């Protein structure tokens, strides 16, 4: 799989994502935000971090980096885009995903392990993962409180666009770390090629860390590509 990881000024999870794909024998590249060429990827990663220092609103200024126009065109052609944490915030600012990430309800930066529940296997990012599977994936954000108006939420639910919800160890919706509406931790677009998620699967995908559950998401992407090619 050819993977292009975008580096914005202030990105700090770009190398983590790059290393995870490299370690899984994919052709990964880091692409600078001022570039105009995505270099023909199968998958684009918008990584976590604090692009442009989170000035004005998280993700608001990154939306105007030159490479983002290429990401928009790529996504609109059906290309796979995965935004993690700050990447999710950027995707909502571009309009590729609906809703907004607001400040956490307790006003704190939260950095901890969190259980999330896979809600649908109907996406390239969750292909082959049984719905209801519980993953232990770290979160690290201050603006992760997903918000969308009522009609938008109904639309997400009706179209099976909620990919991950925060949950407790039993998979019950009792643990909501940031106040996100409907416990939403990750969503996809209606065409099912763009994912935004607050948790960091790239921080749970190597032997040196305590959870490897992030690998299930990367394995799902690999299953999707193996089936396609």
């Amino acid at each position, binding site marked *: 799989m050819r993977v292009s990881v975008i580096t914005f000024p202030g990105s700090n999870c770009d190398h983590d994502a790059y290393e995870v794909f490299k370690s899984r024998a994919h052709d990964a590249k880091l692409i600078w935000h001022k570039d105009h060429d995505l270099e023909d990827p199968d998958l684009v990663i918008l990584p976590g971090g604090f692009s442009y220092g989170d000035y*004005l*609103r998280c993700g*608001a200024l990154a939306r*105007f980096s030159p490479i983002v126009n290429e990401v928009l065109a790529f996504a609109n052609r059906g290309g796979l885009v995965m935004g993690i944490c700050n990447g999710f915030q950027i995707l*909502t*600012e571009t309009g590729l995903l*609906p*809703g*907004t990430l*607001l*400040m*956490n*309800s*307790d*006003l704190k930066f939260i950095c901890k392990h969190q259980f999330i529940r896979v809600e649908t296997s109907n996406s390239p990012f969750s292909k082959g993962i049984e719905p209801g599977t519980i993953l232990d994936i770290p979160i690290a954000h201050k603006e992760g*409180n997903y*918000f*969308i*108006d009522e009609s938008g939420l109904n639309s997400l639910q009706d179209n099976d666009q909620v990919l991950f919800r925060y949950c407790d160890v039993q998979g019950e919706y009792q643990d909501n770390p940031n*106040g996100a509406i409907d416990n939403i931790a990750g969503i996809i677009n209606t065409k099912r090629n763009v994912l935004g998620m607050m948790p960091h699967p790239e921080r749970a995908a190597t032997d040196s860390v305590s959870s490897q559950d992030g690998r299930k998401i990367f394995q799902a992407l690999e299953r999707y590509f193996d089936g396609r090619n």
Partner: protein
Amino acid sequence: MLIAKIFVQLKPSVLDPQGKAVTNSLHNLGFNQVHETRISKYIEIRFDSNDKTETAKQVEKICDSLLANPNTETYHFELQEC
């Protein structure tokens, strides 16, 4: 020269946890009649122009394209000579 004084506010339907925390602090200070606090952004932009009509159009475009997020925020502004 014109100055645009722009206020960007969370929509009333959106919870404002910062405002809630400030309300709690004000109650702790004894301001018990404080019912609600909402935190907004205030932005000033100066323009090399004296054409209020044209500048107002530009400010609207600036707010719509960058300064306000239409999902959660509204804005209003004043234009003054400076």
